[in-house]
């Protein structure tokens, strides 16, 4: 495959490469190295963005213009954002960056123009919450061909200069110097069923269970909250399924292969409504009546997901929040993302018990009465 300073394949990177491949890219690389199946792909590294930015700076300043803004001056901020975004989206790419991306894309898609990819921003901030507030969570699904891919990579870069992103940086006094963005380009899985899972209970924080949520079609419907997913709680160690909630699943996201077009399905945003653009993108369609109340996963698949969840958590050594998909063609499980669970992990919980000088004194919790 071969890589450059501008592009890295997943198998070449891990979490420690985060400063140059971002959180998403680093995590996908880490998963692949740990032997967990992820759809193949590459990361357009921050160096590619920086190389491009240097080119742009040579024309007229970018970073200095942002730093000169006042966070309250919304009018100037909006005008600046518009100008900078347009430059990122339209200025010619440096030849070496262009060549690196095109070459990697060709390898990934085996030179087939119809091979769909997902293009997703991969922020370098330490904290996922930061990235979320800064609007750096773009995901473009079912992107077809090299031209669309390049366009979507630029869209991801350009989001650094969105109004919300700029104002977040200004109000948090973040220096423009360190601002960079990596972009993940990954083969797209046409999933029969997809969803998320947590390696603990979101309601009790219990680490001995895995909570799985899934629905028909692409995972964007679940992540975006457009459908009430089926839900299972399964014993992480025992495999006992203690909760099965099968919901009415009215819609599903599918590739808009015939009519859609490069729809931005940013997490939380609507994915439909781009009916007449060129090929590509996804759309929401009704789920066939007979599947609406049917479980979208078999018990075997639940057990297989549990096994994957366990090995991912083991690999990272802490509870994870995972996006998964089941390939419509092969039936295999693929992971699209794994990040550390933050809600329960951030809580300071009282230990269930502390070791006692006299181990027998533990029984007083039963015999000693209520305190």
């Amino acid at each position, binding site marked *: 495959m071969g890589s450059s300073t501008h592009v890295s394949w997943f198998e070449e990177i891990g979490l420690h490469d985060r400063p140059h491949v971002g959180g998403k890219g680093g995590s996908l690389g880490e998963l692949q190295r740990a032997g967990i199946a992820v759809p193949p792909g590459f990361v357009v590294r921050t160096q590619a963005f920086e190389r491009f930015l240097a080119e742009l700076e040579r024309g007229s300043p970018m970073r200095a213009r942002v730093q000169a803004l006042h966070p309250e001056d919304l009018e100037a901020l909006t005008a600046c954002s518009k100008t900078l975004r347009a430059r990122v989206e339209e200025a010619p790419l440096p030849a070496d960056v262009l060549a690196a991306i095109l070459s990697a894309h060709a390898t990934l898609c085996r030179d087939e123009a119809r091979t769909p990819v997902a293009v997703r921003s991969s922020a370098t901030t330490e904290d996922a919450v930061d990235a979320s507030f800064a609007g750096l969570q773009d995901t473009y699904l079912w992107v077809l061909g090299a031209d669309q891919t390049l366009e979507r990579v630029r869209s991801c870069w350009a989001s650094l200069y969105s109004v919300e992103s700029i104002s977040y940086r200004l109000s948090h006094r973040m220096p423009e110097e360190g601002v960079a963005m990596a972009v993940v380009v990954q083969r797209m899985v046409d999933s029969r069923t997809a969803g998320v899972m947590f390696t603990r209970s979101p309601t009790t924080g219990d680490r*001995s269970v895995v909570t799985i949520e899934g629905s028909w079609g692409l995972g964007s419907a679940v992540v975006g909250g457009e459908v009430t997913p089926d839900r299972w709680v399964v*014993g992480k*160690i025992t495999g006992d399924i203690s909760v099965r909630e099968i919901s009415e699943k009215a819609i599903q996201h599918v590739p808009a292969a015939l009519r859609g077009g490069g729809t931005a399905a940013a997490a939380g945003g609507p994915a439909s409504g781009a009916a007449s653009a060129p090929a590509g993108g996804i759309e929401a369609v009704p789920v066939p009546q007979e599947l609406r109340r049917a479980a979208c996963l078999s018990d075997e698949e639940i057990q297989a997901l549990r096994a994957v969840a366990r090995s991912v958590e083991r690999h990272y050594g802490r509870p994870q929040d995972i996006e998964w998909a089941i390939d419509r063609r092969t039936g295999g499980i693929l992971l699209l993302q794994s990040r550390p669970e933050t809600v329960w992990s951030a809580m300071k919980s009282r*230990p269930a*018990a*502390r070791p*006692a000088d006299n181990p027998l004194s*533990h*029984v007083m919790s039963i015999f000693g009465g209520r305190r």
Partner: protein
Amino acid sequence: MSSKPEAKGFPLPSSLTVLPGTERAQAAYPYFIQFTRADDDRFWFYNSMHFPEPMSAFDMVTAEAAYCALGSSNTRVHCLPTTLGIDHRIINGRVYIGGNAVTDPAEIARRTAEFQQRAFYYYEHWERLYAQWREKMLQLIRDAQALPRLELPEFEPLEHVRAGRGIASNHWLLDTYQKTLEGYFRMWHHHFEFLLLGYGAYMTFFAFCKQAFPEIGEQTVARMVAGIEAEIFRPDEEVRRLARRAVELGVEGQFRDGIPAAAIIASLERAGPPGREWLRELEASRDPWFNVNVGDGFYHYHRSWNDDLSMPFAAIPGYVGRVKAGESLQRDHAKLKTEREQLIADYRELLATEEERAAYDQMIQLAHRVFPYVEGHKFYCEHWYTNLFFNKIREFGALLAGHGFFLAAEDVFQLNHYELESAIIDLMTSWSNGSPPRGPQHWPRIVAERRAALAAWAKHDTPPALGPVPDVIDDPAIVMLWGITRESLDAWLAVGREASSNELKGFAASSGVVEGPARVVKSVEEISRIEKGDILVCQITNPTWAPLFQKISAAVSDIGGSMSHMAIVAREFGLPAVVGTGSATTRIKDGQRIRVDGGRGIVTILQ
């Protein structure tokens, strides 16, 4: 949902009436266990776990002896800080019990100091004390086995005269009866010597697991501490061994469904050396492993495998088929042990801190230390000894029936144990003075009356609890032994409202989901109706039912917790099971299709 539970409490004891026409049968129970007005101030619950059916007058001895021993262990020996013993009452043959809580903080503190000296000593020296316990228990069993046969010869044997024995045969009746009774009361002291401490150590670990893993199943914690070579598995292992030996000896063709055990034994005796060799193997298994009752051992009619070989023999054809299919049928102890260790290690790894792991290690070590007793004592106490006891009483029944006191030996169980002593003395007197005994005119009418009362009581529902609902149940004995909590009481109060639902909730005992036809089995005599793939629905099971589990696809019981026999055996066989549903045998009709979700503890009636 906002309605306060005190608005609905349970009926007061004084509002219960003895069923008309059964007053004299009710009066057969001792005065100190009859309800009085003073009992209205306390909370009582029906002990349907141990006494699911009305108790005959004699069988009440079990409640008397057991609560006497349980109470002394709690109150006087180990000095449990927050509880004394259990009071019991009986009405319409149903046993109600109530805890005697200690609530004064100063008294709790005083008892805590005592408890820590006493209970901690037991925990520290558990292995030695438990080894000693087994010796004591085996000695008690040997003593019971050595009691003389009951004989009243016309003339005292000449050798007794020549030996200058000086005591006539009638005296040995009283001596033997009193020793029989004394042994039973003593056995219950042994039974409770470790029980609360053992359960307490287990509950300590359980409570920790629930705190650390709020969604952990009770059956998972049970699997972490369960023994591998516990006595509870032995009777079934012996039946498997006998099936294997039958194949090895080439006599397996003798075991076919529907042939009575006696006929099989007779034909094996005629089958030459291999048949006789198998019968020797049978004898080796019977003593002691077939001393298991087909019930919990609290009723005289729960007979043992040794009394009725039909249960173990019914299982042999199925096991023979599996042996011939190449299965070893042997439980792989090493593998089970490895799995248990892995389970413990896996949960340990999930704990958040090293501190929690250290506490986990301490607690599971103690749970493992106490568990052999928790699992093992029932075989020696409730099964082996109880069986010897009731059979000895049965001998008295046969003797008295032979002298016209009863129509049948089994009638003896309609007398309470004080009355039985009087009947024995009546016989002793009559044998000595040559006059006819008075019993034949006295007892048959009373026995008939009591049998009729038992039948009437069995058809009559009784409230699950009586009296004011306590705000909190803080009595470790009641929580541990009966699983009664404030939440379970609220559920009982709600029962009337849920009766129309087609769902039953119980303890999740062994995970898995299975659908199939329900076979509602109310007594052991009915087990022959069970066919492959049926779901067993019964009140309660015990070790003698284990061989049945090879046929069924799931199991449901009215009574029992996650450490109950059904739960343990179902996990062993990998079958879904829900235990302690309260009402499965009354709400599920024989032949109905049901779904058993053993992981969630839910049984659904599908049609």
